[in-house]
């Protein structure tokens, strides 16, 4: 039995769809080809997920997005794989081409302390207990490695890129509430190779870069992304959670937008204390996001040219940098 069940061209600027069998109770629906991460494809993924949420298909009981895919769980007693594909075909016909998509999307602002002591402690433990000669760890830190790997002049240039764009939550996964963020401004693209082997400890609140994604660690955990700062807690899973998280313990949802504001570590510690004491109100604005806004910036010739120059600089820099 072939893993690929069907492939469909949707046309009109929309991605190709590949239906893949994922056992007898799930199907993986992939969008686009395996080309580099394309935000337009991710917007299409969210538009489809959102449409399925408002136009439910009988027998389909769970939808989990990835960067360019949807994993769909279904009850095969209620709906066959064949009928599920037909239902998805119908849904795809209702999704507009990416530039016309408008999505439910909240905007959140999070403070970040770069090069904080908890991140340094994680890197230092790694150096001592896991891999003393890791090429990405220099002087108990991996930030300079990110700088070199991306062909940047210095740490400030890295921080400017992180602060200078709105980050799009392409999907949540791995651990409960862990967002995988991509920059809406292509000039802020960054790439980070993963640790090899992984760290055994990463502090809660750590912000890290792996592949093209920036993540925030919701819980103390393993980790293989290059770590560069720390923010506030983003998941409060304990039943004794603080007031701000009683209604929704997961702060960042798929399709939310995040901006970061740099603060000192002392300020971050004070804000984290306010969170634990139930005195902190996260900055969250409800709203919608018109994908056209992204394309207006991302297709501007000056932006395209600058993003291209930065990508070329990164490619050149990577030739000179060791992969962990």
């Amino acid at each position, binding site marked *: 039995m072939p893993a*690929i069940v069907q492939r469909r061209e949707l046309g009109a600027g929309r991605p190709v769809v590949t239906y893949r*069998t994922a056992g007898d109770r799930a199907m993986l629906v992939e969008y686009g080809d395996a080309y580099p991460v394309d935000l337009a494809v991710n917007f299409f993924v969210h538009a489809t997920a959102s449409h399925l949420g408002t136009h439910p298909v009988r027998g389909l009981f769970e939808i989990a997005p990835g960067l360019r895919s949807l994993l769909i769980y279904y009850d095969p007693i209620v709906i066959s794989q064949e009928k599920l594909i037909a239902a998805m075909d119908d849904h795809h016909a209702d999704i507009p081409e990416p530039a016309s998509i408008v999505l439910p999307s909240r905007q959140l602002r999070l403070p970040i302390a770069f090069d904080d002591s908890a991140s340094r402690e994680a890197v230092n433990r790694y150096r001592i207990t896991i891999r003393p000669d890791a090429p990405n760890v220099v002087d108990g830190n991996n930030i300079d490695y990110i700088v070199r790997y991306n062909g940047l002049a210095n740490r400030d240039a890295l921080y400017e890129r992180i602060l200078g764009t709105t980050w799009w939550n392409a999907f*949540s*996964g791995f651990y409960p*509430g862990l967002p995988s963020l991509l920059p809406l401004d292509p000039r802020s693209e960054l790439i980070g190779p993963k640790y090899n082997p992984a760290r055994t400890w990463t502090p809660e609140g750590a912000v890290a870069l792996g592949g093209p994604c920036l993540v925030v660690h919701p819980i103390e955990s393993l980790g293989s992304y290059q770590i560069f700062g720390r923010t506030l807690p983003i998941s409060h899973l304990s039943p004794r959670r603080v007031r701000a998280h009683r209604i929704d313990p997961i702060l960042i949802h798929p399709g939310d937008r995040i901006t970061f504001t740099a603060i000192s570590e002392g300020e971050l510690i004070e804000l984290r204390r306010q969170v634990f004491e139930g005195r902190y109100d996260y900055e969250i604005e409800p709203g919608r996001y018109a994908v056209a806004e992204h394309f207006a910036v991302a297709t501007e010739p000056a932006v395209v040219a600058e993003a291209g120059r930065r990508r070329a600089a990164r490619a050149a820099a990577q030739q000179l940098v060791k992969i962990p």
Partner: protein
Amino acid sequence: MLEIVDPGLQTTVQDYPGRLGRQSLGFFPCGPVDHLAFRAANLLVGNRLGAAALEIPLGRFQANVLHAGTIAITGPETHLTVNGKPVSLWESVPVKEGDVVASSVIRGPGYRLYLAVAGGIEVRDAFGSRATHIVAGIGGFDGRALERADVLDVVATNEPARRKRLPVSLRPTYSNNWEVETIMGPHADPDFLTNNDVEHFLTATWRCDLNSDRVGVRLNPHRFQWARETGDVAGGHPSNVLDNSYPLGGILAYGDVLTILGPESNSSGGFAVIATIPEAALWKVGQFRPGRDTVVFRAIDLAQAAALHDHVAQVLDTRHLDRSGNGG
């Protein structure tokens, strides 16, 4: 109603089917690794099949009974006693205040016992389920494995206790050398695996690594040929893909090490899932003994998976239970 004396290796409270509907937020379902023995234990004490019960890996466990009730323990053969006197698995057992329930390490085939109590174990619901998620520290008993002196409450029940027994002919058989049904994909041939790779996957005898648990069962490394050179933008190894949500029971190619995704796995990641174990065969994975058992995979299609599902449903049909008078 139960006071834990010896919690064993890593005994947890689970329910079935676990924490569904939240994978888009990063929650994998949790729940028992062997859903068949788990539900059978509930069936025997008259519970809802998904009610909260204990999962006891390796088999070693001891608890004091604080209130009279009915219990049932299912799973592989082991030395099971109440007050030192042997009792049978796959049967409901009346217990009274002051009794000591004990089971010993499973020596023969199989790996996990399930203990259900009439009424179901009473723990707080966390995100729609009582299943323990050890990694995130939520669900079950305080979000963790049981420890000595923990006291587990039981939901009060007015149901009269009845002696019930699952006929031997319906009980699953355990082995050290498993054959497990699997459905190829989502990332298999022709774009990820070559024909040779698929043939190797389906003919090789895979060994369960000692480092296997509720998160995943690792199999011995093997170098596939792969149908492509690299993972392109996702990474150097051909098993790399742009991050996807993973299916429960997926067989992940983590580089050259295959891992069966357990109920407490991470919910997504950037590796190819070359095959997926159908829901009705997943219980077998819960009985793999880490470091000892072997497994051979047999490819089936969706129609065969549906037949397998019907077969498991038969086992759990309450009409098949033997009954013998009133107990407790």
